[in-house]
Every structure is written in structure tokens, then in C-alpha cells.
């Protein structure tokens, strides 16, 4: 089994829903106008907090959105071919209320 397969086939469908308040140790900025909607960042995110939006940018591309739980690991930045991400690590983790 290959390295990429190991990550599981369902990853680009979006994160598994979790319950309770979620802690973000980091966050990202996304230059959505530059995004071409390739979805490479989605499975690259270890905590699976990136999800493709249903909206489109002015080039017509769907782009990723961030759900709570980012660790600031930077994987998304590394894999993005369009230089969309900037990574931040919080001095103090930030807590979010999870969605229903």
C-alpha cells in the first residue's frame, strides 16, 4: 500500500464531524482569489479542518474554508500550487464552539 493511499480514500469529501468545543492552536489565511480549486490542500491537512466551499471566486473556482481545529502545521501551505496560504500559530490556543 502506498503512502498516499494510507491517508484513506474519503478525505477530500471533508472532515468528519466532531462534538464539543474545538481548540485551534493555529490558523491560516487563504488568498481565495488566487485559488484554482485543485483541492490538494484538503487531504493534506492532518486535522482535516479544510473544506471546499460551495462558493466560487471570480475565476470560477471553489476554494477551501477553514473549520476550527487548525494546528498551524503548514501542510496546506506546502502543497498548495498557488501560494494561497499563510500560517499562524496562536500564542494561546483558541476555542471554538463546534457546529451541530
Amino acid at each position: 500500500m502506498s503512502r498516499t493511499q494510507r491517508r484513506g480514500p474519503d478525505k477530500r469529501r471533508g472532515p468528519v464531524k466532531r462534538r464539543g468545543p474545538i481548540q485551534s492552536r493555529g490558523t491560516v489565511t487563504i488568498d481565495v482569489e488566487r485559488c484554482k480549486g485543485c483541492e490538494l490542500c484538503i487531504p493534506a491537512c492532518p486535522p482535516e479542518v479544510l473544506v471546499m466551499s460551495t462558493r466560487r471566486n471570480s475565476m470560477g473556482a471553489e476554494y477551501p474554508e477553514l473549520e476550527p481545529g487548525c494546528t498551524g502545521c503548514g501542510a496546506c501551505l506546502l502543497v498548495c500550487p498557488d501560494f494561497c496560504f499563510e500560517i499562524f500559530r496562536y500564542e494561546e490556543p483558541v476555542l471554538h464552539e463546534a457546529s451541530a
Partner: protein
Amino acid sequence: MECEIMLTGIGGQGIQLAAQILARAAVHEGLQVMYLGTYGGTMRGGQTDATLVVADERILAPPLVSHVGSALAMHHAFFAPIETKLRAGAVVLINESVFEGDIAGRDLCVLRVPATAMAADLGHPLGACMVLIGAFAAATELVGIESLLGGMRESIPAYRRQNLDANEKALREGYGQLEAGVASLRAAGGKA
């Protein structure tokens, strides 16, 4: 008879397929035809134009035309350069559902067709282009509906056979929609 037609839209709307269907329909009618597609890069939403020349003798017009007798606009984004090429009395079909902005009031015969809406109503949202060329055929009588359907069947690759019926419906819908209006159009002096 030598008439130049330009189609314009954005990537994904099916402009090239529509142009090819018109071209093949013209072949069915025994006409001479020339077709050239142009694309503005690979991105979704980019420019996509097609030029068609149809004639009953050897075509004299070069592949890049500077003046066109008719135009089909699926989208407004890249319509401007075509607008400057319109001959006096040109027939212009507009996809009213999407097209934003006005067309300068010159000696034009502008026909507005809610192609995207009509296609959506047919449950075939990607068929808007079919509606528009159906309407164009009816408006200009350049090709008949049977030729159009034949051209369509030849232009759809084998692995897209599932779209044949929906496309036929869309073509007929566009054709029918305009048929009624043709008499008035002719009266108005529009020529293709």
C-alpha cells in the same frame, strides 16, 4: 452568399460544440463552411470564441474575419471585440439569462433568448447553447432543424451519447421559440 457568424462565451458553456454543430448542419445543407475556435487560456471562465463562415460557393473570407453578419453571445464577458465587428443589419442572438449590459443601438437585429433559463427548465442546464443555436437557425433560416439535429448527432462523441435526447430537446425548443418571431424579424429587415 457568404455569411460570417461569431459565437462568444466563457469556458464551460459549450461554445465550440455549438459552433461545430452549426458547421456540420451547414454541411448537411450542402453549404461550404469554415470554422475556427479560439480560446483564451486554459482556465475555467476564460474567453472562448468561435468563427464560422458559411457560403454556397468556395469560401473567400479568411479564417479570421473582421466583419460579421451575425453573432451569438452566450455571455457578455468577451462580447466587446465582436460588437465592433458587426456589419450593419447584423443578427445578434443574446443569451438573455446571463448577458449583462446593453448592446449599442446601431442598425442591428438583436434577438434576446433566455437560453439558460429555458435549458434549465428542460432539466438540461448545459443545453443553453443548444437553445441559442436552435433559435439562430430558426431566425436566419441558414440551416433547417433536421440538419441541426444531424450536425448535433455527429458532433457528440460516443461517450456522451446520453446527452443526445436532451440536446435534441434544447435545439427544438430554441428553434420553436424563434420560429414564431421570424416573420416579424424579416419584416424588420434583419439579415443573417
